[in-house]
């Protein structure tokens, strides 16, 4: 069943009446296609849980609408929405056995006993806990508890399955394993699923679409790879990817992009101060390369190794670039290493708004401009670098969604800045 959110907003009033309100979710507008797994991603406190609770009906929205399929469920109480919700800490009833926990939602529906038992066993088999039915939650491992919680959510065949950071209590290995399992279960049941997490890797690895949020505002919605390859602003670029993107202070002058004093490439845009983000895998070691940084160390991690270096123009304390392990690095007499940059791994952002700038696009008509989305080929020869201006020159038109998203984001951000300014007064 598809889920449609229309301008969904949640404002928490302050308790002590000092007039300060929290906009936990701001104008969330999105249609979640049927049977897809959506990763809701963002830092702590950005409104992920709030969104989830509004969809489930546990929290009442301040404004906006929610549709399940074609039904308006905006004012339907939680118990009538038929959602399955897995809480962050599972909320398994501690006094009931696994079986009783899973049965509980069905007993509410006054289902015949035989059918209940059959469905409980089915759900338990699906999440592979059929051996554990007679245990109490306290006698289970974290991963097992989590699967029980999923079984309890699935057993009533929900319209929508909502998972609130279900893996945050698990250790790294179990987390890896269970997220695959969630993916498998979602594929098996084909239930529309929203999965909340603040771990970008988790979201990227199992979601069909990811939604990146910041301070209640949706930043970008797209397939994980596309968001990674084509972030709409500095926040999204920084949020996705391990190791994280390297950020430099730079400028555009005479249609040329500079980092520090070094000419990086042609960039057809108005003159301005910018941030330049370069993905760690976007560096190519080349003694005549366009970017020089001070070599610090090299960390070898099997197939790849990372070169750690420093630069005065860097926003981050160190620059981390990933190169082949067998590549020889020879810092020059000043201890500098030189890199060429893969054009599809470099992103330019306005210094003030932190919005993505695209070459060949003037700021004044940015909103109508198509956004590039397909990356250029992976292998780029070093000679090409200076010529290729930006990923945006790749002749592929962006999907509409990204474009519209970008506009709304722009507007809200603008609004936010004025609001912040007011608050500072």
């Amino acid at each position, binding site marked *: 069943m598809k889920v449609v959110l229309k301008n969904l907003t949640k404002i928490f009033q302050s308790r002590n009446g000092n007039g300060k309100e929290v906009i936990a979710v701001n104008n969330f507008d999105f249609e979640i296609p049927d049977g897809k797994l959506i990763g809701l991603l963002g830092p702590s406190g950005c409104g992920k849980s709030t969104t989830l609770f509004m969809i*489930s*009906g*546990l929290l009442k929205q301040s404004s906006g609408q929610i549709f399940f399929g074609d039904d308006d469920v905006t004012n339907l*109480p*939680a*118990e*009538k929405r038929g*959602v*399955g*919700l897995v*809480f962050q*800490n599972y*909320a398994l*009833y*501690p*006094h*009931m056995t696994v079986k009783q926990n899973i049965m*509980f*939602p069905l007993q*509410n*529906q006054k289902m015949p006993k035989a059918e209940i038992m059959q469905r409980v066993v089915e759900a338990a088999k699906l999440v592979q806990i059929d051996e554990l039915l007679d245990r109490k939650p306290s006698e289970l491992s974290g991963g097992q508890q989590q699967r029980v919680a999923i079984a*309890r959510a699935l057993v*009533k065949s929900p319209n929508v399955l909502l998972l609130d950071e279900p893996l945050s209590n698990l250790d790294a290995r179990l987390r890896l394993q269970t997220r695959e399992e969630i993916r498998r279960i979602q594929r098996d049941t084909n239930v529309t699923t929203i999965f909340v997490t603040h771990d970008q890797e988790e979201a990227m690895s199992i979601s069909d679409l990811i939604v990146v949020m910041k301070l209640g505002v949706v930043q970008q919605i797209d397939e994980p790879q596309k968001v990674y390859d084509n972030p709409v602003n500095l926040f999204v670029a920084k949020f996705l990817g391990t190791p994280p993107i390297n950020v430099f202070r730079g400028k555009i002058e005479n249609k040329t992009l500079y980092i520090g004093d070094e000419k990086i490439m042609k960039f057809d845009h108005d003159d301005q101060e910018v941030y330049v983000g370069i993905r760690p895998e976007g560096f190519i070691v080349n003694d005549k390369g366009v970017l020089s940084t001070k070599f610090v160390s090299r960390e070898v991690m099997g197939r790849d190794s990372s070169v750690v270096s420093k630069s005065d123009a860097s926003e981050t304390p160190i620059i981390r670039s990933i190169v082949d392990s067998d590549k020889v690095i020879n810092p020059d007499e000043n201890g500098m290493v030189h890199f060429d940059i893969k054009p599809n791994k470099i992103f330019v952002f306005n210094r003030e708004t932190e919005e993505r700038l695209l070459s060949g696009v003037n700021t004044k008509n940015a909103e109508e401009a198509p956004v590039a989305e397909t990356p250029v080929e992976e292998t780029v020869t070093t000679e090409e670098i200076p010529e290729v201006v930006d990923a945006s020159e790749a002749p592929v038109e962006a999907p509409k969604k990204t474009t519209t998203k970008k506009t709304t984001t722009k507007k809200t951000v603008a609004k936010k800045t004025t609001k912040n300014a007011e608050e500072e007064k």
Partner: protein
Amino acid sequence: MVDSKQQWKAWLYLLPALILLAVFTVYPIINTVRISILEGYKPLAAIGGERYPLGIGNFTKVISYKGFTTCLTNTLLLCVLTVPISCFLALLVSVCLNSINRLGKVLQTIYFLPYVTNTIAIGMVFAMMFNIVGLKQVNVAEYLSTGGQYTIYNIYTDVNGEKWGFVAQSWGIINNLLQLFGINPVNWINSGGNINGGSSTYVANIAVMVVYIVWNALPFKILILLGGLQSVNKQYYDAAKIDGTSRVRTFWRITVPLLSPMLAYVIITGFIGGFKEYSSIVGIFGEGMGPSGNGSLQTIVGYIYDALKTDSYGTASAASLILFGIILIVTLINLYVSSKKVHY
């Protein structure tokens, strides 16, 4: 860890408390046991150096005493009636209090007031509320013709052939309320009038005591249960709501089990308190503890005090130990049952 050389310091700091405990708790307990097995013990004579033979005479005396069965039944009856009622009401009130946001704190304080008010004072207020003042003499014919609706007692005919009788009068709020609905005032607490020979019925006495004890026991229980409720993770309720659980089912299947440790505690302490019921009865009925004879509300603790008053230290001690035994058994049963039902 305290250094063993320093341990004497620790003990030194504990000493004041230990001395008080020894003098006022440990010694009396041991002495009670000692006295209970000395036959015919008299304190004054004992100080004078008289020796008493060991034996179980005090116990047999207590058990064979006719009034002791009354004490036992009264105590048991009060326990059995008040503990379930008060626990259930406390549960209800605390669940309601817990779901109120605005006036919750104020109401909590109000509900807690009985706990900090003196038992005897409350008893006197209750005596007022349940009071019946006396009988008013009325002319039967006149009373009936003016629409009198209450029972006329002790009707007699005077020399002129006129019929006279007595109608109960009350200013106690409970009886006034009853009268509002046209119900006869009831002699609740053996106060005034000589309806039916002047004494109140056993049922009326017990009813008053049950109301009083329940009301008096509520604050403590509410306090404990409310604390328990507030520590229950709200997500259980959210989960239940998502699953479409009705309120009643949520209460019985989630709230009660999650509260069961506190409920067990409240029930056990309720029984212990019930078995020690005494001062409240004195507060309402006076030292006579209700009408003499069948209607008496004498309890085990009351019996112990009476024995002390008459210098029968031996029987008092024996009765205390019997009471201790009863409470122990009941508590053990409680613990056994709760070990099956309580989810920690």
